[in-house]
């Protein structure tokens, strides 16, 4: 099925059936899916509210762009480098901050995301606030598709394993989890690092499609956008994150000429979802083969 999807769209792109407009949106969609799924691992499955996800995206973007434009590495190496750099940033930030609880952790990650942005703004090697432009367009549909598939495979396989259960137990009751033998700090950091790594990958793909990256691109507003996707989709559902990411991308494109309305709408979505349906669209359910079977076949 995946092969079909891939080929269909690849065909569309090569024969220019899919216009530039659709291609841009498809790219944004894939990048958003990677961002949303990676954040849902941290916020949804581990229950740690991280508000600085854009910071990891920035680390990945800059790392990859430096590798391709200044150090002449091939794209694949840059992508790997981006993920590793962002993952490392996740580790460095995660270890001290994941000791904090709930709202304190949230604010700390917000502050750290902003610190990353401010630091980047002040580094001359990357042109400070002006950012790096003229980035070669190395991101193709194949890379995007691959990125999305990889992210989904890793997150889904992780969650559906004993390690996934350990991670979820941290969300459900951290103290009980500790007392049942789970090293909660280790698993919080694990989820954080993996989530950060994929955000970095998304950043790298972003940078090599949209020609420029500036520190301003990766501000709290971006973290907010990703948060809206995860909350809307359901904090604890990968399927939800994917669906919400697709929906929000489409909404963003539709509301392009009305940026204020878009923000007002996102803010309202956040508020209304949290008050009236805090489990989001999917709750913590996924589209599994069982669910599909039930819907289509009436099987128990």
């Amino acid at each position: 099925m995946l092969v079909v999807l891939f080929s269909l769209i690849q065909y569309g792109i090569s024969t220019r059936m899919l216009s530039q407009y659709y291609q841009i949106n498809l790219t944004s969609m894939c990048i958003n899916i990677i961002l949303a799924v990676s954040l849902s691992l941290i916020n949804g499955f581990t229950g740690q509210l991280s508000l600085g996800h854009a910071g990891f995206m920035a680390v990945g973007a800059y790392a990859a762009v430096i590798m391709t434009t200044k150090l002449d590495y091939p794209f694949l190496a840059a992508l790997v480098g981006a993920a590793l750099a962002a993952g490392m940033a996740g580790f460095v930030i995660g270890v001290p901050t994941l000791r904090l609880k709930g709202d304190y952790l949230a604010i700390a990650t917000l502050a750290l995301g902003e610190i990353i942005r401010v630091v980047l703004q002040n580094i001359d090697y990357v042109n400070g606030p002006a950012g790096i432009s003229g980035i070669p367009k190395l991101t193709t549909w194949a890379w995007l598709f691959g990125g999305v598939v990889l992210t989904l495979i890793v997150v889904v396989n992780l969650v559906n394993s004993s390690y996934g259960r350990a991670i979820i137990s941290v969300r459900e009751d951290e103290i009980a989890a500790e007392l049942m033998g789970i090293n909660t700090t280790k698993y919080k950091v694990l989820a954080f690092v993996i989530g950060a790594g994929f955000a970095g990958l998304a950043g790298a793909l972003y940078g090599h499609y949209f020609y420029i990256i500036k520190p301003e691109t990766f501000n709290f507003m971006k973290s907010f956008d990703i948060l809206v996707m995860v909350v809307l989709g359901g904090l604890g559902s990968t399927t939800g994150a994917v669906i919400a990411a697709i929906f929000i991308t489409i909404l963003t494109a539709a509301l392009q000429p009305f940026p204020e309305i878009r923000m007002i709408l996102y803010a309202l979505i956040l508020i209304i979802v949290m008050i009236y349906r805090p489990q989001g669209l999917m709750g913590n359910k996924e589209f599994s083969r069982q669910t599909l079977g039930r819907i289509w076949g009436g099987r128990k």
Partner: protein
Amino acid sequence: MTILSINKLYKSFGGLSAVMNFSFHMGRDELVGLIGPNGAGKTTVFNLITGVYKPDQGQIIFEGRDLVGMTPYNICAQGIARTFQNIRLFNELSVLDNVKIACHKDVQYSVLGALMRTPAFFKGEAKIEQDALKYLEVFKLDNKRDELAKNLPYGEQRRLEISRALATQPKLLILDEPAAGMNPQETNSLMQMIQMIRKEFGLAILLIEHDMSLVMGVCERIYVLDYGQIIAEGLPQEIRNNKQVIEAYLGEELN
């Protein structure tokens, strides 16, 4: 053979002394009770043993090792498991998953194995499923394996908590008010269950309880705590007739 020996434990919070000069010992196969009026510090002692709190002074020697300073998950690995006064299940997870998490510390495959779905992963998962089901069967909860923990009736939630604790394969099981909220019949079943656990799994059990019929019915030895200090220790019969203990529980019937 002593399994747990506590020497002169002290713990205070701010200016309040919760536990003072607490010394205690129990053997490998013993069933010991810790009783005392509300607020005496019993749960604090449990929290100190399991590493949730760090004592200000004193030692907690378990199987020859001092547990003071160890993280809770390490202490669990050493062989101590517990249940909680207010049930702490993983509510949004199924009954089976709750127990599977207790099996995680001995997982037989790595993260990489999980990501790449290696044969080790499938074998490891099968083992965890098998082990977890085994514990559920002992407590007759296997038919509810896919129910969400939060949807179970109270009595079954308590059983699940104990089942989960046992799945960590402890040498010492600590039960914090297991009979809380139970009627006499349920308490009776609980008593039988505790006896059964002891025989089946051969472990030491330490429990806090207010229900005296349970305490007198199963405990081999009892410690009495009041205002953070031990005021009596001995066999159930001795404790029953101890004047200080009766005074501490002023107004409560010890029968």
